[in-house]
């Protein structure tokens, strides 16, 4: 197990492993999301209080849950990067940040859209909402910090430190509904007790769970792809990258100049 882990951590084998895994994650994720959307929009009944507005839950809740999970994952990867100086983990941190920021933004936007009909305002300075906004800024901080350094390795390790320290905000977001009397509703789904005996009608719950699973898989696929790009860019001078990224019958072809746009796997013909 440990040796397997070690081998996987080497960039070329990770690259090939991810290459095989990512398409499966992507396809299954999209299928699940599609199924959930169909069930959620056309099969599930309208809510007796909120009418059809509640259906935004199928986007909001998975996005919000992912926004927290991704930050947590980043900090775990960050810890690995800092303790074992593992390059792959460094790449993992910086490639997760933009995805996390997107999901956070999505959670915020869907939340705001949902807030208008239910609370009568797009935005209130409520603890849950505010701390989620802080989370977005933390993600943006990671992205900005990465760009502030000219050395990719240093940048990634700085981001890892930030991810580690910033993770204190994650429990604050999650428990904000309990610690402050909040407008936002409490955890009815995402807690151990709630999973044991759900309070939601099964026809509404099922699409939600499907959508959750689909989004996680989708995230996995995107993360792997971004990590692949990151690894290629980092290792652009290594032999294995040239073998992958350059046509074999062009021996004089120059190594990749770098830049995210050039490091695509599609270059192999």
């Amino acid at each position, binding site marked *: 197990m440990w040796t397997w882990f070690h081998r996987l951590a080497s960039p070329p084998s990770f690259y090939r492993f991810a290459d095989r895994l990512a398409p499966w994650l992507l396809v299954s994720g999209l299928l699940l999301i599609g199924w959930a959307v169909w069930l959620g929009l056309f099969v599930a009944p309208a809510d007796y209080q909120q009418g059809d507005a509640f259906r935004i839950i199928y986007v909001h809740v998975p996005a919000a849950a992912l926004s927290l999970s991704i930050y947590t994952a980043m900090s775990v990867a960050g810890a690995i990067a800092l303790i074992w100086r593992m390059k792959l983990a460094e790449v993992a941190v910086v490639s997760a940040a933009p995805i996390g920021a997107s999901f956070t933004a999505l959670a915020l936007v869907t939340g705001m859209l949902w807030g208008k009909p239910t609370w009568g305002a797009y935005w209130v300075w409520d603890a849950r909402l505010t701390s989620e906004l802080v989370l977005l800024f933390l993600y943006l901080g990671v992205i900005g910090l990465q760009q502030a350094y*000219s*050395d*990719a390795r240093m940048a990634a390790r700085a981001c890892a430190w930030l991810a580690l320290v910033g993770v204190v905000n994650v429990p604050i977001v999650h428990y904000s509904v309990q610690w402050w009397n909040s407008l936002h509703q409490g955890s009815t789904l995402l807690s151990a007790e709630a999973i044991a005996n759900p309070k939601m009608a099964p026809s509404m719950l099922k699409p939600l769970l499907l959508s959750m699973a689909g989004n996680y898989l989708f995230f996995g696929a995107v993360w792997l792809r971004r990590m692949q790009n990151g690894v290629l860019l980092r290792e652009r*001078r290594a032999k294995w990258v040239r073998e992958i990224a350059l046509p074999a019958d062009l021996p004089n072809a120059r190594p990749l100049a770098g830049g995210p746009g050039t490091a695509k796997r599609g270059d192999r013909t």
Partner: protein
Amino acid sequence: MSRLEVHQLVVSRGDRVVLDGLSFSVAAGEVLHILGRNGAGKTSLLEVLCGLRRADSGRIAPQPETRERHWVGHKNALNPSLSALENLQFWAALNGERLDDPRAALAAVGLLKPQQNRPSGQLSTGQKRRAALARLVAVPRRWWFLDEPLAGLDVQGLALFAELLGRHLAGGGAVLVTSHQPLPGELPSLRHLDLSAAA
């Protein structure tokens, strides 16, 4: 520890490899004068040896201990608001060293009372360099890593430095030093290491 061995050292800056598999060794009592064109990697090498920068690969054995080495880099490590004396005392306290007579150390590099007490931001280039070199006198340590210590020193400064160097070597110390000018003084145990790769 009387010998420092460096094996197959690889050091890169940004994404260029600056030192590509460098090996050498230095023994007690020796001066290693590191030469090389501008950008050859002299500063980078010393920084790696001092533990200020990580090498990509290679081995340094035994890595000199903190309390056994001196580092005087391009920068003098003088806070401009504090005097040369205060800076020296702070440096000693930082390293847990006791200074018996810091003023004597400063005088040994040619900084007299008025220059010792003035905020070091008000010293001239060469005077600042001397204040940095005073650390070598104030606390005896076996390994000296010096990056262009002669920069800015006047003729008298060079003579003082030559004297210091001679005393240090006689006492069994070793020196790794970069400099674009020849080292002053009689140095029987002088060896050269030329890094002249084009940058």
